[in-house]
């Protein structure tokens, strides 16, 4: 900003100059995952329900796509997206009660959301692969 007096005080963060921290990544990821589910996973969910309600042929088409390699890739992807949004969403709810604003603890909880989402995704798909036979 032109004409601003030069002072030794720190400026508030500038739009294009900031340091990547895990808290910021979690915040942005929460938005991206929520909106990705709204525009992607929701459509697949509706396809599944409507196919089941339509009949065996419509459902067979859904299942053949869902259990193909690309369908499974998308399935694993949205599973992670959901668990990540769930973990950062729970973190949001905790912070709404005024807790977890201590810098170290806040950073740790941000980091934990990523660990939790990966562990839950691996666990879910390990069970699916071992019990569903695809």
């Amino acid at each position, binding site marked *: 900003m032109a004409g601003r007096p030069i002072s030794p005080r720190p400026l508030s963060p500038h739009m294009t100059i900031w340091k990547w921290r895990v808290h910021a990544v979690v915040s942005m990821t929460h938005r991206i995952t929520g909106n990705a589910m709204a525009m992607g996973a*929701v459509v697949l969910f509706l396809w599944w329900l409507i196919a*089941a309600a339509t*009949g*065996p042929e419509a*459902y067979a088409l859904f*299942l053949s796509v869902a259990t193909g390699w690309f369908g499974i890739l998308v399935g694993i992807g949205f599973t992670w997206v959901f668990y990540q949004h769930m973990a950062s969403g729970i973190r949001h709810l905790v912070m709404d009660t005024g807790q977890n604003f201590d810098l170290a603890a806040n950073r740790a909880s941000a980091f934990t959301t990523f660990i939790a989402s990966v562990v839950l995704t691996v666990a879910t798909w390990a069970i699916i692969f071992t019990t569903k036979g695809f």
Partner: protein
Amino acid sequence: MGAGTELGRVRGLGSAKDGVHHWWLQRVTAVGNLVLMLWLIFSLVRLPSLDHASVVLWLRQPVAAVPMLLLIVSVFWHFRLGVQVLLEDYSHGAARVIGMLALNFYVLAGAAAGVFAVLKIALGAA
């Protein structure tokens, strides 16, 4: 705090005539989503098979159909509020009006189709 009355402050209504209602419903539906989505994942993973017959038999039970209907309401309501925030942050003018209209149509049409599919199965028509 501004010059509003005590009652006005309690109700949280400013000039927008809508205070923390959006924020609060986003939290209420977040808790709903948490419970219902975990229920859905557990239920599907526990089904012996995901073929048509198994899924229809499962969804015919009231203990599955009712939570599924609640899930559709909670999830669609939640992301309706969430995507609105995205549109308010990044779109302006006519694009925002069109975006909001498209969002409302998408949510209502999608939820209606989902509810209809569950009811059709639950009431034995599929």
